[in-house]
């Protein structure tokens, strides 16, 4: 088991409407190499759940155990380091550094973590995502699909234990979305990664081994 969530509760204070319970007693576990899709309506708490798993936010109560370590007990800097080493993230909006080239964006996490063989590992990753010939272009010069490929590569380059994706094809047309999904699942399978994906896209969700539906803060 790579990830385990125990009795997770999360609420937000709203200035006018008071406390809103977003997640209510969430319990689940994911095994290594598994692919999981979390679906649900807008406002059902999908993104909040993903942010808790990523260690970007903390639950009100409950435990999140990733690779045997409780994220809720880590200090902020400790959490940042842990996240950098063990979690890869892919966003709907790509969120690439605009002034860096595709190659530089991919190598950035390795450089931050001061890892070895950066050049070789980036070359291999560029080869895998098929962007070797576009490696020196900045995001503004790349298409949406290409940007998302760079984002996937950046997430995978650190060989994370867990890959989190927030609507990875949400910003792309169907055809490009399908290609990106295929690439993502292919890489996850080849690299034997665990993937948790938040998506509205049921076709995409169906490609995962497990599909969980989040309704009114509870997993169905």
């Amino acid at each position, binding site marked *: 088991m790579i990830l385990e969530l125990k009795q997770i509760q999360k609420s937000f204070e709203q200035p006018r409407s008071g406390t809103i319970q977003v997640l209510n007693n969430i319990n689940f576990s994911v095994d290594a190499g598994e692919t999981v899709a979390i679906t649900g309506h807008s406002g059902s708490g999908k993104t909040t759940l993903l942010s808790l798993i990523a260690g970007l936010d903390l639950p009100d109560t409950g435990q999140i155990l990733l690779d045997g370590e409780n994220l809720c007990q880590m200090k902020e800097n400790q959490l940042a380091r842990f996240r950098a080493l063990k979690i890869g*993230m892919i966003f709907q909006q790509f*969120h690439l*550094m605009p002034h860096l080239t595709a190659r530089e964006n991919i190598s950035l996490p390795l450089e931050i973590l001061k890892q070895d063989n950066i050049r070789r590992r980036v070359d291999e990753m560029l080869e895998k995502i098929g962007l070797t010939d576009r490696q020196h272009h900045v995001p503004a010069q790349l298409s949406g699909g290409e940007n998302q490929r760079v984002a996937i590569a950046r997430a995978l380059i650190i060989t994370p234990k867990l890959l989190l994706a927030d609507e990875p094809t949400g910003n792309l047309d169907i055809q490009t979305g399908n290609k990106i999904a295929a690439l993502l699942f292919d890489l996850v399978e080849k690299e034997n990664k665990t993937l948790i994906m938040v998506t509205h896209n049921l076709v995409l969700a169906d490609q995962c081994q497990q599909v969980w539906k989040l309704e009114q803060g509870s997993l169905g």
Partner: protein
Amino acid sequence: MLWMTLGVRDLLKNKGFSFFFVLNLSLGLAGFIAIHSFGRSLDRHFDTNLKEILTADLVVAANRAIAAKDLERINSFLGNDYTHSRQVSFYSMIRTTIRNQAHTRLVRVMAIDNSYPLYGAFEMAQGSTPTDLQTRPYVFMSTDTAYALGLEPGSGKNSTLDIGEQAFILKDHVVSDPENSLTSFSFAPRIYIGIDQLDRTGLIRYGSRIWVSHFYRLAPDTDADQISKRLKDRFSQLYKDQPPYYIYTSNDVNRRLGRLTRYFTSYMGLVSVVTLFLAGIATAYLFRGYLNLKRKEMAILMSVGGSKQSIWFYISFQLILLGTAASFLATLASFFIIPAFPMIFKGLIPDNVILSVSPSALALAMGLGMAGSMIFCLPVFIQIFDIKPLMLLRGTPDTATSWLKQVLSLLPGVTAFVMISIYAAGKLKTGLVFVGGFTLAIGVLFLIGQGFVQACKRLSQSRTPVVKIAFRNLYRNQWTSLSIFVTIALGTFLISLIPQVQNGLQTEIIKPDGLKIPVFFLVDIQDEQKAPFVAFMEKQDAIISNLSPMVRGRILKRNNQPFHQRSDESRRRRGRRLEFNFSFRETLDVSETITQGDPISTEYWDWESNTPFDISVEESFAKENKIALNDILEFEIQGIPFTGQVKNFRKVRWNSFQPNFFLLFQNGVLNDAPKTHLAAISQVPMDQRQQLKNRIVDQFPNISVIDVTQMANTILGISNKLSLSIRFMAWLAIAAGLISIFSIARHEAWKNRNQINLLKVLGSEYPAIRAITLIEFGVIGFAAALFAILLSYGFSFGISWYFFDNLWQINGIISILILILTTLICMGTALSASRKVMNTKPIHLLTSGT
């Protein structure tokens, strides 16, 4: 290294931001260096002028020979590196017999040694030097004095005059003498003899009224004022608060010049602080915008493993890099620009001023550039710690920075600002007043800004779509609108402050309107000569003004306390002075204004009455002697006691060169006292001056005719230089301010591009978009500038009242110009940005979110 590389790459990518950031900061810093160096150069220039007027760095003088022990004491304070000169002066009647006709005349004999003057020089008609005066009984005098005495230079009969028991020979004519009347106004023409010849005159005996001066030229960079203070303290201790010596430096050289240069120093401080503050506002504003744009990138970096400390370092490095670039640029520019000022601004800055870059200003500017950008931007900078990668998922901004953090983040900037203000102003109190004033201004502008936003809400009800959209934008983005309003208003406020202060100051410095600068100053007109003299002058081609009676007397008591025995600081400084000149006049001269109290009674004072007569006191005299309104002063004039009451304080514009007095009495008090008269003569054509002088001397031999042209030229020359400099610095501050406003407006207009693009996508045509943009930026620019200018009137009045003795005058034309320029800059930059957006394809809107 990674973060540094990232930082540099990022700055290179954001060329526009980097360029304007560096430009703004370097302009502010260059302005600071330029103004500070300019001010320091002028200070040096005026200091040299004042030293030349004083002829030394330090003078110790007394109305008797200075004791040898005291001279040793003085020397012990000066160290080893100084030069010394001695002078003895006294009034004496001299006698000539030319063509069997005897002439006698009162002159001021100046006995000088070889070293005199220590600064400046004699300009002699035939090139003689003071050395010539020591070995033989020679004398120097001006052509006018020689004419009055019927003397000609040379060795003939017509060259000899008797001073006491010794016959002297007129050796040469003085064309220009170093002692040009500013330090010791002469009631008689000056003639120079050698100090070694003094004993032969037999005039220096016990009880003789002499004036002995010891001049000292100190090593460069010696603090003469500090030595002066220590000497005064020492002699005050030795002589129990009654030191027999006058000690003064170039700063004390002249009442009017001292005041003018003090005004100038305070003004220079104000302008340099304002310029730096303007640059700081624009820099912090640009950085705020930059950091807002960078929030997402920082969140991305955090999401891929960057710690907050690394990101803090990354941004700090960028700031330091930009600040350093700005400092170097400013330093480089100032090295080229400052020496070129006299050429570039010919006619705008005084001639003969050697401008050099001030090392202290350079060091401060470098420090400010490198660390200052961090300090100025700290309130924005601390927001980095509140950025969380969570925003990448939620797409909403992070939690706001707490108020406490924001307030704490302001502290280093405020502290730095206070320190710089104190440094630039040269005084703790002045610096603190500047800072307090600016803080208050920010508060007031913030409140006005809130009112402005509310007004926009009302105006957004308009039925005209374009107006409605424009005002709705301003209202709905109220925090953005408020911050633009306050920033532009603060910039305009600072820009507008300077010309208002400048106007009043300049009016004081230049000669009073409608006043004729006199050519001759007449002394010793006897009471019985008054009528014949006026009748004589009516026939001459000249104007006589301010024929003023003068009575000498003593001030005995102030509110029943002995006037001359008080041991306050001002008395120590000035030494003991017992006799003063008093006068009375029906109406005040144009050079005089009552600043406090009521005019003195015009009724003839009744000698039999027990009520004290009214007195008008010159305000600096009152301040120096701690005289308050309604104080009772007791006098002794010709052995008769009088009692008066202070009715008002009067400001005298001493650069009017009119006969003016510290104390004016009510009509009737002095009318029958033995008196002489003073007068000024003006509007004498250049070619007729000598003839008129000769005619006066022929007709009234006892009247001393002092040519004040040289003195007037010296003072007016310095006044004009100060006036020019003040105007130049005001324009420099306005230019720096307008560039800052341009940067802010440009940044805001650029931020608006998405909205413009959206309007374009939704089908708006360019004229409508242009109108919305112009209304938005025009209204905010105009309103901010208008309220800022109005506020600046109040503040400039306060500053003028506090620092510049109430010298305040509205400069309406400059205000209108600033209002128009600020509005146009806001509209123009916004329009140019909107046009740029109009030329970009709408697809940019869709792709810019990468």
